């Protein structure tokens, strides 16, 4: 059984390592300092279990998981994070509160084994990630991956969003990035006074709009500073006008 630990504190990793010695069937294949290393190691090693800290440099544990196509079973470890703990409890995902005892650690492992190494966890994990994406950190940035490179996009830098099958295309100055989320997700997460869903498949950052032109029948086109053109439907136009105070 391959295990990866992702935590930015050396001592926090060492205690997991120590507790793991009682479980010889577990093989520690990587220890990661941050989410970037975590993504890389998980893709290379395809572990059966990861111990994942929440608060880490640059991208937090949740954001790291969002970047992974098929996340393995996770046991979260955190010291104090009211927001995350509430989410864990409502989604029955196992987590360890630091400092945790050997007994508590063994119990978490037993639970993981019971779940059949946890294919069933996947849906739980998805709903968990959806619910924590309302956290303050994630309302201010979007973490995406482009050909192996991870980018953190502050929401102000987003020009507009475009639906693309199961993904959302995040358009920025530096090009478009795909994010494995739905338009509905972004509609709940992003500030409604800054981002308006102008169309079934489009959401626009109103700070980027330079003008709105009529376009066929009842439709309009929002012209952006960047030169981008975003379709605005009839209902989208009403929403846009109310946010812009017209």
């Amino acid at each position: 059984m391959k295990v990866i630990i992702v935590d930015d504190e050396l001592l926090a990793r060492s205690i997991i390592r120590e507790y793991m010695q009682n479980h010889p069937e577990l093989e520690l294949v990587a220890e990661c300092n941050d989410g970037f290393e975590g993504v890389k190691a998980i893709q290379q090693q395809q572990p059966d279990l990861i111990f994942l800290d929440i608060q880490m440099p640059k991208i937090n544990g949740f954001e790291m998981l969002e970047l992974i196509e098929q996340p393995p079973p996770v046991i979260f470890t955190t010291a104090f994070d009211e927001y995350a703990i509430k989410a864990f409890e409502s989604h029955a995902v196992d987590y360890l509160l630091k400092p945790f005892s050997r007994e508590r650690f063994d119990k978490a492992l037993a639970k993981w084994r019971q779940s059949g190494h946890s294919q069933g966890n996947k849906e739980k994990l998805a709903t968990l990630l959806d619910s924590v994406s309302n956290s303050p950190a994630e309302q201010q940035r979007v973490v995406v991956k482009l050909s192996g490179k991870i980018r953190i996009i502050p929401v102000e830098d987003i020009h507009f969003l475009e639906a693309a099958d199961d993904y959302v295309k995040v358009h920025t100055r530096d090009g478009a990035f795909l994010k494995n989320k739905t338009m509905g997700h972004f509609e709940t997460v992003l500030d409604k006074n800054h981002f308006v869903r102008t169309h079934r498949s489009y959401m626009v950052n109103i700070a980027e709009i330079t003008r709105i032109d009529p376009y066929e029948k009842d439709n309009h086109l929002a012209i952006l500073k960047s030169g981008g053109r975003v379709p605005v439907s009839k209902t989208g136009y009403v929403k846009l006008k109310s946010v812009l105070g017209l």
Partner: protein
Amino acid sequence: MARSPLSVSRFRNSFFGWWIVWSALHITLLLSYGYPLSLAATDSLVTNSLLLAACWIVSNILRYYIPYSDRYWYVLFLSLIFSLVVNALSKFILNLILADPLNTNYIIFLSNSYWLRLGIAFLLVGCMAVICVLWYTQEEEQENRQRKNDAEKLSRDAELYKLRQQLQPHFLFNSLNSISALIGSNPSQARNMIHQLSDFLRTTLRKEEEQWVKMEEELQSLELYLEIEKVRFGHRLSTSIVKDEYSLQLMIPPMLLQPVVENAIKFGLYDTTDAVTIHIAVLSEKDALKVIVQNPFDPETASPRHGTGFGLNSVKRRLFLLFARTDLVETMAKDHIFTTTINIPNHESYYR
């Protein structure tokens, strides 16, 4: 309960002074009508003593009860009643004492001057009543103002207290976790860290009691805090502290710098993945303290566009509550370095 105006010596002295002058005037008036001194003095003493008593009773009645509406009708009513009573009593007593065939003239004068006496008594009692109403209204207002001040001070103290003791639970539990890990691998370092953590907790607890501490003490607890964080983050965190001797003797609100340094660590360590150095400089400028904290940050993701943010609001608020100034915290982001400057005016010039 408000003080009675007669309980204030300045007021009481002038009240009795006026009373003596008034009584003397009364005697002089009667003498000028040709009445003998004994008669004039008796009349003055009886009438004015009764007036004095009436004034005293009226001031006490108003002390316990002044209606909010119709207070001037109430004053008028009281004055009328008491002047009628005073007049009837004085007429009765004077008739009783001075009923002598020799004084027939005076007795006639007494009954003839009834309306004049009533008018004068009414004016005097009314005057006293108005003075009392004004006095008590002012007293009540002063009491209200005092109470409002007290309430404001209380809530300000409570807010300051809350701002002072914002210990990060995240820090505490992570430190305990580090200790838990060290117990297995390096027991003596674990013990050392327990001592550091206890010392730090003790200073924060003790400091909650105090309004001002020496910069030296504040810096000591910051150093303890940083030592603990260094154990947690290992080689990633280093610090440099510059201080001048004079500034260490200056006073600072306790735990004021703690959130500033916590922020520096948070944005230094959580916003970059490299090794981080936190610079702290403690300087004195004239008699004021100047503390500068610097940490690296990543302008791409930390986006100081969200105002000066960085969680320094509690520090700003505290300084505002203490000094009523909003310009004491300055922040600057330049070349991947975030600088926070805190100015602490000399507290003695504010609180002496």
